[in-house]
């Protein structure tokens, strides 16, 4: 499997570095690597919602149906990196499930591409 994108940055990215802002100083999600297109879904973990901030709760409400991280970030109007950190909190608590990382990180195979092609042709 390919390396996660931390090892994959283009040298030409030059002086841009990963942001250091918000989320109590955390700039990267604790739980694995979350892609912009990763689908997440809320599950009832029985966890105490009191430990959660309003943004966490807004995310949980939005992803009662599976939704991508990019969509969540857009709907709660937070930068992607912030949405990822908040989601990693929720994943650790067991409030949210994601597809297994190996399925989101690699380029789609033949069956998946064929299904997408059929779907797009039918649009």
């Amino acid at each position, binding site marked *: 499997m390919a390396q996660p994108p931390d090892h994959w940055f283009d040298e030409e990215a030059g002086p*841009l570095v990963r942001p250091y802002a918000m989320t109590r100083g955390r700039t990267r999600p604790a739980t694995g690597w979350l892609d912009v297109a990763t689908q997440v879904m809320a599950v009832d973990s029985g966890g105490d919602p009191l430990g959660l901030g309003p943004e966490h709760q807004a995310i949980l409400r939005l992803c009662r149906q599976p939704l991508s991280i990019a969509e969540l970030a857009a709907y709660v109007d937070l930068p992607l990196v912030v949405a990822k950190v908040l989601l990693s909190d929720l994943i650790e608590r067991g409030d949210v499930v994601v597809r297994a990382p190996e399925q989101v990180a690699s380029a789609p195979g033949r069956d998946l591409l064929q299904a997408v092609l059929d779907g797009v042709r039918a649009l």
Partner: protein
Amino acid sequence: MVSVHSEQIIPASVKVLVAGGFGVGKTTLVGSVSEIPPLSTEELLTEASSGVDDLAGVEGKTTTTVALDFGRITVSPRIVLYLFGTPGQDRFWFMWDELAYGAAGAIVLIDTRRLEASFAAIDFFERRRIPFVVAVNHFEGSYDYEADEVRKALAINDSIPVVACDARKKDSSKLALIKLLEHAMSRLPAAEPKVS
């Protein structure tokens, strides 16, 4: 991480990038095929102070944002396709890297009046061996070039599909997307022979 059985209920995502220079029609293309009005999200960047392009002279670190717009096509209950318009400016390369990671491929839009605006995008996908097609967006005053002329001007391989496009029209954007998916499939390694 909780992911047990989640693949049974959580759809797979497929990413396609829509790239090309400034104002070449990326957002328009995403919007014309998306089932939802294009969404926009942003990524935060911290920029070091060294004198680079238009940031020369800026003291200390500044945080800036790069906007990212994207659309969605629900292919089936199990599969969702996302189209991401890549940020036009070269200094947002790192964003492209994250977007390109695991992507099915890219549609590189070009405006024949200013081809050079899309050179960086072509270079990016070529180097990473990410399948791409070139979609020639027709603007008023742009001349209709043959596919071969476009390939020559862009110095790209004969195997790369070149399609004419009007990003404002759904059918036209859809065709570019179909060409890309077909191209991506043709680039897959041959199917494993079935073990009998």
